[in-house]
């Protein structure tokens, strides 16, 4: 089994913003390499030199905690030490969902096509709220940690796409269901004039609202992209820094 390279392990466990993590890994990686060369020049065997250099330079738990404290984001610092990262994230997500719920409930309560749509509106809300929670979770991590690792990014965007498709499906279903109901009623007694056009107006409005929710989902995705792209590019640079380091040893 191959042991994990020290810098790669450090990248994995160090919880500082992506940009700061890149700079730390560059600095520590360069010092580690230089110290190895110095020890090799003194005739220290390679394996021992790696152990000595790693013990001196690679941050242990206490040093990592100090670095993480030093590189906290302003919001995280403001929230204070007494609150864990998980709690802070949960609070921000809860706040996002609460605000979203308030908006959705207000829209459902306000007299109009959304209130008249009944079950369709609640179904749309049932898709919108978890989508909001998912998006809020990503935003919370970005705001609190200024970092979102690859696996979390993939999960966030994947779920977001799923919710957008679900929203589109619910919107289409709502429109089709309304249209079906109206056509069934109309097939019994053919509508004309005001009844017909009012029905068309109602179905169209529902469709527009459904597409509006989908558009909001797409816009919220676009809002995240600049930051996510920055993290991807930083991680690509980190990979280049880490890949310069040869494997320390192979335990057979």
């Amino acid at each position: 089994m191959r042991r994990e390279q020290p810098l790669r392990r450090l990248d994995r466990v160090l919880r500082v913003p992506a940009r700061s993590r890149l700079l730390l890994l560059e600095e520590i990686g360069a010092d580690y390499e230089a110290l190895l060369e110095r020890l090799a020049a003194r005739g220290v065997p390679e394996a021992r030199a790696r152990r000595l250099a790693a013990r001196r330079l690679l941050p242990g738990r206490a040093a990592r905690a100090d670095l993480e404290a030093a590189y906290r984001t302003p919001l995280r610092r403001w929230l204070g030490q007494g609150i864990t990262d998980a709690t802070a994230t949960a609070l921000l997500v809860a706040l996002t969902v609460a605000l979203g719920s308030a908006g959705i409930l207000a829209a459902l309560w306000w007299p109009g096509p959304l209130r008249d749509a009944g079950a369709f509106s609640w179904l749309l809300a049932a898709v919108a709220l978890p989508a909001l929670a998912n998006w809020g979770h990503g935003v919370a991590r970005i705001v609190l940690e200024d970092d979102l690792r690859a696996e979390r990014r993939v999960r966030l965007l994947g779920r977001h796409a799923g919710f957008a498709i679900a929203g589109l499906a619910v919107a289409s279903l709502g429109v089709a269901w309304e249209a079906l109901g109206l056509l069934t009623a109309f097939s019994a007694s053919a509508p004309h004039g005001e009844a017909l056009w009012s029905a068309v107006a109602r179905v169209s409005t529902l469709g527009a609202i459904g597409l509006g929710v989908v558009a909001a989902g797409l816009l919220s995705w676009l809002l995240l992209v600049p930051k996510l792209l920055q993290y991807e590019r930083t991680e690509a640079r980190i990979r280049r820094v880490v890949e310069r380091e040869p494997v320390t040893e192979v335990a057979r």
Partner: protein
Amino acid sequence: MQANLSKRINEILVLAVLERGPAHGYQIALAVEEETDGAFTFQHGTLYPILHRLEAEGLVTGAWQEGSRRRKTYALAPAGRAHLEAESSDLRAQFATLMGFLEGAARAA
């Protein structure tokens, strides 16, 4: 008190090395270990939080050198020089008081 003293000593060791000239992180760690005969060592990467804190406080300056691999060099800032002088004399006075107290205690015993 103990944590504070340890922190002050670590800082003053780093600043004292940089007083001689700019250095990379690993050079600071090696200089401290070799010149104190191992009495003071920076293990498990404890040097880096110290360096970064000193840089944030403006006591040292960090600069990147481009090359086959980017390396960071630290140098003593004017504020760091003043801080080093103040801390050195303060710690000297404190240790002198401590030694005086211990000698008095030994004589009394």
